[in-house]
């Protein structure tokens, strides 16, 4: 994990009419890390990602990026697969491919062909695919440009366990091969503990992120053994307590 921050939110406030979505939120994502954001439905996780992507602007506060990321395009894996229905899988991927860097594309080719097996369905239309395959295409699209910053909005949702593991393994391998910083939004504590270096909780009550916990269990699929480890159970329990607390009325 590198040291300088890739993304810094300083006192960022986002409102929709009278509703405050984020309130003087502070956040720092280190370069090269996978940063997980957990939170209840409606806590503003997606809005936070959209702010990072520049799809929305904050009412106040500043969002700053490291020099490698500032002004550069970012990749975004949308919660809905957002495949263009009248384009084939291959065309969907090519439509979003904008890499011009030297040697760029090798990693994405590897991801698409070997890890996700999308080369076999390149000519298929989105409606001919299962939900899981659509998710895989959506996921691959997020990586074909090999951008420095990848924003992922529940990319592993709505998949069966085997498909989920395929994509998660692909993602973990990618983070080793490609220099990138990733921000993952999810509801799933186990998933966050599997792929993230650090996890923070976005509270729907305070509209802020709490301080993130460093996760030493990244990349470990051995669920039974993990639950035997006190620190894993501690982080897991803290996450459950957070969700319980969020459900209680203020």
């Amino acid at each position: 994990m590198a040291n300088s921050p890739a993304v810094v939110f300083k006192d960022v406030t986002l409102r929709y009419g009278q509703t405050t979505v984020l309130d003087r939120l502070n956040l720092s994502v280190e370069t090269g890390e996978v940063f997980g954001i957990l939170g209840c439905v409606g806590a503003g996780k997606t809005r936070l990602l959209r702010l990072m992507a520049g799809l929305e602007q904050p009412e106040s506060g500043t969002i700053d990026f490291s020099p490698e990321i500032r002004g550069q395009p970012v990749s975004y894996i949308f919660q809905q697969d957002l495949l263009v229905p009248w384009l084939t899988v291959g065309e969907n991927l090519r439509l979003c491919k904008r890499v011009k860097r030297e040697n760029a594309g090798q990693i994405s080719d590897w991801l698409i062909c070997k890890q996700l097996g999308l080369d076999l369905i390149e000519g298929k239309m989105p409606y001919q695919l299962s939900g899981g395959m659509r998710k895989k295409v959506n996921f691959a699209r997020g990586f074909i440009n090999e951008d420095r910053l990848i924003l992922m909005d529940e990319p592993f949702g709505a998949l069966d366990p085997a498909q989920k593991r395929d994509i998660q393994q692909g993602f973990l391998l990618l983070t080793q091969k490609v220099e990138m910083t990733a921000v993952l939004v999810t509801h799933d504590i186990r998933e966050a503990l599997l792929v993230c270096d650090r996890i923070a909780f976005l509270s729907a009550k305070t509209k802020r992120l709490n301080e993130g916990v460093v996760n030493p269990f990244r990349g470990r699929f051995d669920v039974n053994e993990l639950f035997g480890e006190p620190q894993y159970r501690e982080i897991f329990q803290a996450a459950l307590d957070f969700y319980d607390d969020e459900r209680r009325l203020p």
Partner: protein
Amino acid sequence: MNSRARFFIGFLSVVLFILVWDFASRIGWIDADLFPPITRIFQRALELIFDAEFIARDLFGSMRRLFYAGVLVLPVALFLGIWAGAKPWVNATLSPFVNFTLPFPKVAIFPLMLAIFGIGDLGKIVLIGIGLFYPLFINVLHGTLRLSSGDFVDLTNIYQVRGWALWYHVYWRGLTGDILVGLKASLGYGFTLVIVSELSASNNGLGNFIWRSWDAFQILDMYAAVFWLCFLGWIVQSALDRALVYHFRLSPPRT
């Protein structure tokens, strides 16, 4: 119901209709002067299709007007529909005119067209063109608005889909269904306006042929001309229907 059964029922209903009409006309249940036996109408229609004057002067006359109006207007409607859908300021500029002029029956301005352009072909072509414009423009406009808002905008912004890729792969290919539906509506209305514009101030065309037949009380000719008009309309609509089915098989509407 499978497609074979559907075809059979449709075929049977047409045969039954023909038989009942023909029989009723021949035995005098209906006035044979106004409703001649349908087999005689088909016979006359066949005679007409081998009549060089009818083909060159009337059938092609009507089709020529529709063709010129289409060539002149449909690309404009298409371009303006996409442009207005993609650029809010264009939509804001055009909307008052479109919304104000859309509801009135276009036939109402035919005398005005004659006054402005004279009794030649130009006035008729302009009138047909005005009728062709609206359905295609509105379909394409709303299709483009659908593509220019919401999820796809985020996708194209994030992945910086611009230029040819945006206009061809997102807008053009995404609008194929809307364009075909718009064309179907436009041409359907176009046929109506072709005939109406030829009923007066014209010396050729199917509308004029029907009018001449009425003047001479040639009921059979009137029916035969209507038959060919229906047949042409059916060919065009069927072709567009097939294109639509093919398109939506390739890309069914989003659910």
